[in-house]
């Protein structure tokens, strides 16, 4: 029973992932690029956190700016994704070029602060 249930769960999970993948493959390529970018940013941030956990937080400002840079970038990328996504009716009138311009501007401002804080 237990075996069958576990196998059924595995199957369910498989089915779920399968459906997720098929659903995701329908996503437009530009959104996939943004997703990839977000993942890149988050993993970079995670590696820094792991490094901090291993060797300690000195120098703390450098750690903070490194991690915040990643998180900030990720958040901005997510914002960009929201605005670019055509299914979001809310931003229907907003051209994706405008959204990209905002993204670039925000990134530049964010990194100016990050660089100042880096020490």
């Amino acid at each position, binding site marked *: 029973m237990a075996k069958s249930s576990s196998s059924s769960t595995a199957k369910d999970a498989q089915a779920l992932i399968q459906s997720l993948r098929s659903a995701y493959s329908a996503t437009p*390529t530009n959104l*996939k*690029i943004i997703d*990839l*970018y977000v*993942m*890149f*940013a988050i*993993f*970079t941030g995670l*590696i*820094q956190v*792991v*490094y901090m956990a*291993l*060797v*300690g937080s*000195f*120098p703390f400002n450098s750690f903070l700016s490194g991690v915040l840079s990643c998180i900030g970038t990720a958040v901005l990328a997510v914002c960009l994704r929201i605005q670019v996504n055509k299914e979001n009716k809310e931003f229907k009138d907003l*051209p*994706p*070029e*405008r959204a*990209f*311009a905002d993204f*670039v501007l925000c990134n*530049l401002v964010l*990194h*100016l602060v990050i*660089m*100042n804080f*880096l020490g």
Partner: protein
Amino acid sequence: MEREKEKKGRKGERGWEGDVAGEERERKRDRERERESRLISFKVFSKNPRNQPPPKIKGMARSLWFLAFLLSLSVFTCKAAVFQPISDRHRSAALDLFVPVDGSFGSLEETYEALRTFQILGIDKVADINPATCPLVVETLASQSSKAKDIFHALRVNSILRCSIDTGAFEGAGSKLQSVLKDASSLLDFYYSIGSLVLIKDQSSESNVFLEDADGIFHSIKSLSQSDGRWRYSSNGAESSTYAAGIALEALSGVVSLASSGVDQSMIGIVKNDIMKLFDSLEGYDDGALFFDEKLVDASEHQGPLSTTSSVVRGVTAFAAVTSGRLNIPGDKILGMAYFFLGIGVPGNTKDLFNQIESLACLENNKISIPLILSLPATVLSLTSKDQLKVKVNTVLGLDAPPLTVELVQAFKSGSKDTHAFQGQELKFDPESSIHSLDLLSQSIDVGKYTLAFEVLLHDPEHKNIYTSGGRTLANIFVTGVVTIDGAEISVLDSDVGSVETKKKLDLSGESTVSLSANHLQKLRITFDLATPLGYAFVPHQVFLKLRHESKVEHIFVSGNSGKQFEIILDFLGLVEKFYYLSGIYDIQLTVGDAVMENSFLQDLGHVELDLPERPEKATRPPSPPVDPYSRFGPKQEISHIFRAPEKLPPKELSLCFLALTLLPFVGFLIGLIYLRVNLKNFPTSALPAAFAILFQAGIAAVLLLYVLFWLKLDLFTTLKTLGFLGTFLLFVGHRTLSYLASISAKVKSA
């Protein structure tokens, strides 16, 4: 105090040179005082080698007493002053001050001052100076452009160096000076040209220099004189000055010596009259020194008292030398000026030294009256070592005086105004050492401080017209001797009845250690007698009793004296509070000292154990022991700096490893892009939009590069400025690129 005020006042009134003179004199007095006080302490310690460290002035009370002692001495010392003639001190000072650089002294004027000073002091330096200076002298005389002033200084230098100068140079300079003299209107023009002509006449045997219009020139110089005997530098509105008077007199004496036929005697008479008027403006100090001071203050060429007096002395002696008949200046005034120059001591700069030495040399050989200076080689005479009173009489430059007798006309003992018995005596002259001496021991003289008045009597009546010694000369001397101490006793008395509890004899000349004990109801009494060698009662300047507690708290008591006996009574009942209720052992120390007491002493007598009542709550606490003044200047305690411990850093390998790890997601990102088959097909193809797109990408790259630079080396302001430009550019380019892309996508949509 009065004296101090007066000193300050006098200092303020004098010019800077006056200050030099005044300060030197003060210094001399200070030295004398210092010597006196040193004498005391020396004697004290030679008596008691094991006793005490040198008496640092510990308590306020003690230092005040010391001050009072010094002041009382200064009152005595200032009244009379004996001036010392020029000595080896001046010679070494001259060698220190006039230092040639590469065989010359700078300008010709400075060279002359140095050479003349050396010449007067008998120091031979001519050979050292000759090679470097003679070419300068020759060049100045031969040059067409040299002024009368330069020629004057060159000739003065030559008068000492005797460089080889051909007659032509002298004649050329002579004719030039004659022409200067014709057009001369200011006093300095006259002075330099006439002075130069006189020097040419002296130096060149062949050239025949004389003034044709001597009377005319004499008149034009005389026309600059004022009714009070002073002169003006030029006729147009210049103020009259005493310094100029000296210059004018020197120029006039030159005119007289250069005149081809004699100068009008009536004119010379008038100038002599002017000199008399000039001498009415002499100012003086209370020690007999007389000097001229400039009255005008605003002139740019203001001269101090030293150079003014020096100028007048030069002028007057030169004038007296060339004119017949005597100048009727009192010898006292000449002597007063000599005192002024000698009173300066050794000046600290070359100009002052030259003025002092040259003026004294002028006074040494003048035709009016030659001052004789009476001086005492020693002013402290000991009865124990049977010192004799010695007096020297010299000329101002330290040469021997003509045969004379020194008489001691009066002697005062300070404190009492009675004249002393040993006055009215002639001093014996010793021709070998040229010292006049008087045996004091045979005069039954007692210890003390004396003011002596001497008179100089010249043997040859002819000399009375030539020399001046200025009547009476006052001098202060100390006669020191051993003071006998008798009947020294220390005793503890019962307060209420006055009966003697314990009584001990003291031997103040040697060692004595007594140990006593007393309580607060008793008294401590110390008595002793002091007598001079002649048996009179002696009152020294310092009689102090010091009690020192174990905890270094000190108390000083001043003794009173009743006639012959000295008595110090300490009533402990009244002193309990002053002693801060500190019971225990007190060391007793007695100080007896005086400038004339050869056996002054500072001696430990022993100790007294005091039993005082308990200290009440409210009573003042004993002061903390004084800080040793030497420790204040010693090395300070070393400061150890505490730095923040450096943070622990991970090994370098680990950090590099994580650097590589952070790059991994980026690699993953790139792989993901390839997997998604991302391409750049949307990149504009036509030329202009492509260019804008490339510029847009380049702009973003530039901003990121700027950020990296900001991190590495730039400051915020530079970064923001550059970012401003880059941002504007990026905005423009980005707008064009993105709007182009938008228009394309819009077209695609509509299609």
